[in-house]
């Protein structure tokens, strides 16, 4: 964390409106990206992004701000918001996988492999998906993922290993 970020976080912790606006601008895009990877709908991801930041304010109001890393704390809130959202869904409706964006200029085999991998990801358990998205989608370290999920680093490593093994098996089955 740079001194500027540290100062911003301190001002936000004291409910400074300007700092809160800057905090939103700095992190909303990242939170939206993470939520989109979890719910696969831009509209839902945008709505949930608002919910995440309202929960940040509620935590500040109730005197329960982040104690260690802000980023991990924020992802933890986002994680809880996603879990709540899934619980509230009688039937989960995701966007068709074929409509997901693919890299510009990607070849057809690349696109098919990409979609096969996304499908394989959806076959994993919620926690396995969570670990893989936080690790390989958000680029978080093992200890950050552990903090978000409330697990030990060793447990997250084991979860990651099982998730990758399962993903490899499903993905291999789909591409063969």
């Amino acid at each position, binding site marked *: 964390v740079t001194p500027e970020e540290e100062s911003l976080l301190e001002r936000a912790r004291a409910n400074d409106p300007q700092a809160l*606006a800057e905090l939103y601008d700095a992190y*909303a895009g990242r939170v939206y990206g993470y939520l989109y*990877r979890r719910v696969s709908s831009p509209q839902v*991801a*945008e709505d949930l992004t*608002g919910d995440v930041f309202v929960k940040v304010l509620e935590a500040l109001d109730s005197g329960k701000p982040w104690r260690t890393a802000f980023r991990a704390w924020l992802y933890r809130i986002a994680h809880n918001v996603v879990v709540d959202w899934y619980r509230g869904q009688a039937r989960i409706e995701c966007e068709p996988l074929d409509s997901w964006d693919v890299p510009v200029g990607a070849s057809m085999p690349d696109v098919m492999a990409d979609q096969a991998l996304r499908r394989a990801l959806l076959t994993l358990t919620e926690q396995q998906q969570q670990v893989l*998205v936080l690790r390989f989608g958000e680029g*978080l370290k093992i200890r950050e993922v552990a903090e978000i999920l409330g697990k030990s680093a060793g447990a997250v490593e084991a979860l990651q*290993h099982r998730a990758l093994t399962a993903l490899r098996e499903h993905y291999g089955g789909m591409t063969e």
Partner: protein
Amino acid sequence: VRTVQAERRLRAALDEIACRPAPSDARTFERDLGPRESSLLETADALRRTLAVPPPAPPNGLQESRQRFLARAAQPTTSPLPQRSSRVGRLLPALNLRLATQVVVAALLVLMSGAPLSREIVRAASTSVPGQVLYPLKIHVERVQVAGADQPDTRVALALAFLGERVAETQALLHRQAPLRDETRVEVQLLLNQLLRAVAETPDQALMSTLNYVAMQLEAHERVLESLHTLAPIADAQLVEQLTESLPTGAPHHRLRTARTHAFH
């Protein structure tokens, strides 16, 4: 020993894949690993590249949730019927005017000195209503907040939130059967002027979402005020009417755009 070393290498390679700044075709994880570990790394690398594809742009550019966040941030913790939880807040209505003035001056001095008591007083002020001794402090704090915001959308959100406060205060006074005060009308007008100025300064790319949000919020305030018409005694009915009419809710986009045009000329 070989297994432990292999696990360590696998872990390091997974860390490299997960935490490197941007995925590329360069294979930096080729190590002395068995076929099972290598295939895990291949899978992780493929996943990293797949998840690195940027998500589609949010439908509203995250502006609506930004406005919602800023409006929520601007609200103290006042409910439509303010409940005083602090000891200071409960005691103050009983004080007489001279003492009240002294309390306000003392509060300002404490504020300037930055003593911890200032937080308690500001909290008590945030739930005050017109006619109470700490109300001028509440208005002062709000004005400082608006003046201190350097982004137009932050000022829009603050002005809307404080307009909501004026409406909530009006509602609280009527529920308590306490008389309304003309200063509410004056404050509402000042906030509307600040709101229009902030809208006028909004960048073009954010204007539409800002206008939609402002219109939505003003209509919500208007609905609350309209619901108060039946509640207001004859002496207060005219003021409620004036407050309702002062909100630019009829064709709000047109009125706000007109204000924006005037601001630029």
